[in-house]
């Protein structure tokens, strides 16, 4: 609401500005200054964030779960002047916080519309990769967050340029700078930032915005589905380097070929309202973003049956809205072996407050719990529950085979269970409770890492929900 008010204020003042010029022309009073009414009610356009100390009005707000004392002012290391910003990234397991991360906020907000980049010099105590750094994080709406990911740091001072995706949006921005960085291979280290400021470089050019990774996506969906659109902005810097930053959804203006079917709000959230087809595209600062998403809405969603009420202590849930879920690596591993055709699952569909996995072009697909998350220990569990909706007509010989793989890549054992066409239902849900003992060959289920759904192309489109082990 606040922002809206300022826009109207601006528009009003702008028309005053035009009026003033016109009057001046006709009365031949070019020498006179514009009247006081023509002056915009702007905010400070101060460029400096940290040169040798904080610019006025700036506060340091560490993220709640981070190492709160990671930041200090260092008068030993500096690129120029008398001091730099020092960030101490904790070691793995540091009780004071798992990572260093904070936002530096201006108390009132600044007008950054005349700048084209946030720039700074950075060096580190060792070569490292700074996970996330940017601006626009105001701990409020975070409407115009910009993030540069995976910035390589070395032990020499290097200038980093983070271009502003569309400066005209930042007429009152509070988030001057933010960062988040974890240990490198478990080890903490220190990095320093100096000469942190907004600049008008004049060499930020050739904008190439993109949504959804620049890919033209397609999704079968249902009424009530919510789909978030993420985007990036790429500029060619003066050095010739193409610099890509994540740009918050509000930098983009969205359009839908059929708003009755798919409507997008200013935070980039698509809501499916009716059956039919619609294509969503976006524009950033007058440039059409690469990438789009086309929806084919099949109408009302037939939710999976609500699973039986169990004691949560007797359930290990992989994917359900009824029980707390364990962490997973992915819902679709997209195996790069050239054989997997399965699309969907990443991310699951979000419909009416719940989620469901939608696989299309299925031949096989796997949910992974072994890469960056602990494997599932289902030793004490007795059954696997899963709800499957075959989203097409069922033919004789159609099947879905479930395969569980234990201790992926090490001492692998696996077992499978086939659901045949006599159990499955075309265009309808089936709820299955499969004894784990039926997964013949799975002698050890203490480190389950992969759950496969295999159809060998007999069934192409399925919805999956309520995947959990229980006893």
């Amino acid at each position: 609401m606040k922002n809206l008010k300022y826009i109207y204020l601006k528009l009003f003042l702008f028309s005053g500005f035009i009026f003033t010029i016109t009057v001046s022309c006709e009365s031949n009073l070019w020498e006179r200054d514009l009247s006081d009414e023509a002056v915009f009610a702007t905010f400070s356009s101060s460029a400096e964030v940290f040169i040798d100390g904080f610019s006025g009005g700036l506060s340091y707000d560490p993220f709640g779960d981070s190492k709160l004392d990671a930041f200090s002012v260092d008068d030993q290391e500096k690129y120029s002047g008398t001091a730099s910003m020092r960030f101490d990234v904790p070691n793995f397991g540091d009780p004071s916080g798992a990572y260093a991360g904070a936002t530096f906020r201006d108390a009132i907000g600044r007008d950054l519309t005349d700048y084209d980049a946030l720039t700074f010099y950075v060096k580190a105590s060792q070569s490292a990769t700074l996970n996330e750094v940017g601006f626009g994080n105001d701990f409020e709406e975070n409407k115009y967050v910009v993030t540069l990911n995976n910035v390589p740091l070395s032990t020499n001072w290097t200038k980093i340029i983070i271009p502003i995706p569309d400066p005209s949006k930042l007429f009152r921005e509070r988030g001057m700078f933010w960062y988040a960085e974890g240990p490198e291979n478990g080890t903490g280290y220190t990095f320093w930032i100096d000469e942190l400021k907004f600049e008008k470089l004049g060499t930020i050019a050739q904008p190439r915005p993109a949504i959804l990774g620049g890919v033209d996506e397609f999704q079968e969906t249902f009424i009530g589905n919510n789909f978030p659109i993420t985007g990036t902005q790429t500029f060619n810097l003066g050095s010739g380097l193409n610099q890509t930053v994540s740009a918050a959804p509000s930098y983009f203006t969205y359009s839908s070929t059929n708003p009755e079917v798919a409507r997008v709000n200013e935070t980039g959230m698509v809501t499916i309202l009716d059956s039919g087809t619609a294509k969503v595209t976006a524009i950033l600062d007058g440039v059409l973003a690469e990438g789009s998403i086309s929806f084919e809405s099949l109408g009302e969603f037939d939710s999976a049956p609500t699973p039986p009420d169990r004691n949560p202590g007797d359930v290990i849930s992989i994917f359900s809205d009824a029980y707390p879920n364990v962490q997973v690596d992915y819902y679709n591993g997209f195996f790069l072996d050239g054989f997997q055709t399965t699309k969907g699952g990443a991310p699951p569909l979000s419909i009416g407050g719940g989620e469901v996995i939608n696989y299309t072009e299925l031949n096989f697909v796997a949910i992974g719990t072994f890469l960056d998350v602990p494997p599932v220990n289902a030793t004490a569990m007795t059954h696997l529950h899963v709800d499957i909706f075959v989203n097409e007509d069922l033919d004789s010989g159609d099947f879905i085979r479930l395969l569980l793989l234990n201790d992926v890549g090490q001492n692998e054992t696996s077992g499978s269970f086939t659901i045949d066409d006599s159990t499955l239902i075309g265009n309808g849900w089936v709820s299955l409770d499969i004894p784990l003992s039926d997964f013949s060959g799975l002698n050890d289920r203490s480190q389950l890492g992969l759950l496969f759904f295999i159809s060998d192309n007999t069934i192409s489109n399925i919805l999956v929900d309520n995947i959990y082990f229980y006893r």
Partner: protein
Amino acid sequence: MINKKNKIMNKKNKFRMRKNAIGYTYLILAISFFIVSGCTTDETQTVAKFTDLVWADEFDVDGAPNPDYWVYDLGTGINGWGNNELQSYTDLPENVIVQNGYLIISALEKEESFYTSGRLKTKGKFDQKYGRFEARIRLPNGKGLWPAFWMLGSNIEEERDDDLNTFQWPFCGEIDIIENAGSKPTIVSGAIHGPGYFGGSPILKEYDLVNDRVDTGFHVYGVEWGPDYINFYVDDILYNQITPSDLPNDPFPEDFYSTIYTDSVELELYREKWNTWVYDQPFYLLLNVAVGGLFDGAPNEETVFPQTMLVDYIRVYKGNFDNN
């Protein structure tokens, strides 16, 4: 209609500004003259002026470039025009066209790693010895793009015919008024290639636009060329002067050239030209957008096609030299 009128007015304004700029140049040269005269005894030296517009293409007529002014270079030349360039030049409107007051040369990727583009020259239509040669250009962008506005000596011999009045490149001389490597959007360079300094080792100087770029707006790139000097400009900045004192003095590669010029009279002509100033005869103009080649390497996966070079005008002024 209003736009058209504005455009004409803009052009008039630009021309007025240009005249002012020449006045400024005059001032700079005058100052340098006094400095120079302070340490030489040459009292006969006069200040160069380039005020007489003798040839210009404002690109105001839509369609193909004016055939009275321009000739197309077509195809891939020998060995990618001698530089391993990847494009094939065409005379198709998709590569070369005049539109809305601009000459537009477009480099296209027709299929993977196959490019077309355009190259125009005034050979046989217009050439001149000495003067100010300038063009207002917006350049393309991206690794592997190699746009240029340049000149070649009119006595260039394009195929071996033992004519003792013509010379093969680089003995004819080449003046690169402006070249740009698409991967360096703030850097341009001016150079000369001649006998003893050519190919990978021309006499070249870069100019950094600093806080500006070649591909976001127009800049005026020019040379002012007189007896024994060539001055290189970007907008109104003089950033280099090349004179005969800049020439190298490496020995003539007898073994190499004696296999090409087997006639002893001809060989002697080439030997005499080695390391000499060959910029005292008429040169003609060229404009092109190359893709790939030795200057900026091949395009990479981040290079976007099509890429365009927009030329607002080319203007050639005469110098006030006795032998012009």
